[in-house]
């Protein structure tokens, strides 16, 4: 497994067109194994070490609006959907860390029309 490479992740804003004051869905998907630390590797017979995302912060222009602590029960390649009321132009950033200390972030611009 190539653990060190930057994770693939994606943020989607739904619906595509929105105005100030609308409530939008912020979908966040990341490619991550989310190992529980309880399973055996079928080839080697050794227990795979736990490796899962434990902290996620959704913020708008540096101000967090939802933070979550996550445990290994969350599925492989986690998907989170959070609702947010648009207050203006800015950037939505999702920062996430996992239990091995890996830190990543992904951001997307918010461009309300009208």
């Amino acid at each position, binding site marked *: 497994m190539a653990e060190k490479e930057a994770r693939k992740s994606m943020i989607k804003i739904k619906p595509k067109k929105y105005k100030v004051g609308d409530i939008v869905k912020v979908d966040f998907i990341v490619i991550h194994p989310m190992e529980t630390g309880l399973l055996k590797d079928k080839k080697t017979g050794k227990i795979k070490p736990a490796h899962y995302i434990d902290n996620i912060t959704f913020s708008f222009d540096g101000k967090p*609006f939802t933070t*979550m602590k996550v445990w290994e029960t*969350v*599925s492989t390649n986690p998907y989170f959907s959070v609702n947010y009321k648009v207050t203006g132009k800015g950037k939505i950033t999702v920062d996430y860390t996992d239990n091995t200390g890996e830190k990543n972030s992904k951001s997307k611009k918010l461009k309300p029309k009208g």
Partner: protein
Amino acid sequence: MNRRKFIGLGVMAVAALPATLSALSTIDFRATKPDTWTAHTVADGIKALYGDIKPEESGVTVKAPKVASNGGAIPVTVKSDISAKSVAVFQDANPESAVAVFNTDKDSIIDYMFKIKMKKSGTITAILEGQDGKFYKGAITIEVALGGCEG
């Protein structure tokens, strides 16, 4: 509702918007409540996180498919109209019960959707800690056709 009233409401809503985005209190539950993480039953998890509480059995909606074909990714939706301090989600099928804890503030919209894995059929429980200090609870029992922890 007549047209004039309707326009008035709209103006009020827009005016109320920018004022409210207070700082979010970020509590590191992993550091402050380490027992939550290692709790093996739902009751222990709730006790470790919030202490001895008697939540009201209403106010929180947990949605999930009644029969999940794949236990590896069960979509779970947690919804509520109550303004909350934090929302915690637990399940009783896996060795460790805690799923996720959301920190929110009074302006946050409690409508979260995420995917979890479950080893076998069980109950998903959501506990909401309101701004008023009360606790609310929602739960759903689902069947899992194929366990999700076998890889």
